[in-house]
């Protein structure tokens, strides 16, 4: 499952809408091993195409080095499909080179409806996974005086079964 902050999802969708009808692409970095995307980095689509995207190799080197220096990794790699569904194409699968990343696809084919799906792509095998959108708009430090030992930023509404 991909857990991602609502503000990041909104920024990704805004990027995809802005670049429509060209495909948009980017990364969300997070601390190594955390599986938590925290830093949104919109990238240039060097292909500037409606049907293809490609990171600019020099921009990628700079961003990947920066992640390395900050002990981050690419937790999410996203791009948009602008006329088709948010499902990985054969090209997406053949290029998928980050086995630890969540491949997030946004379709902008419908201007009024958001379509976001997330996939793992490992050794050519595509596995869809649920996306959990987290509202972390509340400053976690502001809740320290709460009587209940639960941070509103991570409230999980699922029953524990007890």
């Amino acid at each position, binding site marked *: 499952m991909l857990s991602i902050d609502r503000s990041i999802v909104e920024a990704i969708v805004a990027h995809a809408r802005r670049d429509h009808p060209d*495909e948009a*692409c980017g*990364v969300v970095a997070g601390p190594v091993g955390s599986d938590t995307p925290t830093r949104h980095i919109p*990238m240039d689509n060097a*292909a500037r*195409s*409606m*049907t*293809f*995207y*490609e*990171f600019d*190799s*020099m921009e*990628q*080197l700079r961003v*990947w080095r920066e992640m390395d220096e900050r002990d981050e*990794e690419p937790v999410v*790699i996203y*791009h948009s*499909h*602008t*006329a*088709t569904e948010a499902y*990985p*194409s*054969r*090209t*997406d699968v*053949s*290029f*998928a*080179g*980050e*086995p*630890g990343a969540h491949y997030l696809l946004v379709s902008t084919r419908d201007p009024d409806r958001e379509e976001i799906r997330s996939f793992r792509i490992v050794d050519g095998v595509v596995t869809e996974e649920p996306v959990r959108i987290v509202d972390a708009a509340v400053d976690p430090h502001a809740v320290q005086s709460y009587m209940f030992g639960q941070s509103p930023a991570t409230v999980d509404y699922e029953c524990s079964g007890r």
Partner: protein
Amino acid sequence: MAIEVRIPTILRSYTGGAKVVEGTGDTLGDLLTDLDSRHSGLRARLVTDAGALHRFVNVYVNDEDVRFLGALDAKLNDGDSVTILPAVAGGAFGFAAAAAIAQHKLAAVATVADGEAGRRVSAAR
């Protein structure tokens, strides 16, 4: 003569999990052959059967993309740092379709060229 090589996650199965390895070589091609002698299989993930650099990887010497330095012929010096990254690319359109369109375009250009050549030939007659 040692050259530091940074290995991406997806290829670390060839280096026993190591993020950085060392190798030698006067060119990138030589370096990859040298690395493959200790990390068997690594070269095949970077170089196609036809002997060209794979489309799915980016290789940098220091701060330069090797595609602008002669690819596998890129010259290396002692102390250089080589970085390998997975190329991040994709999109709605399949390779096969893109290749087919490129072929059509080439065919169309060829047809036009043939037509012109034909006209020139008939004009000369």
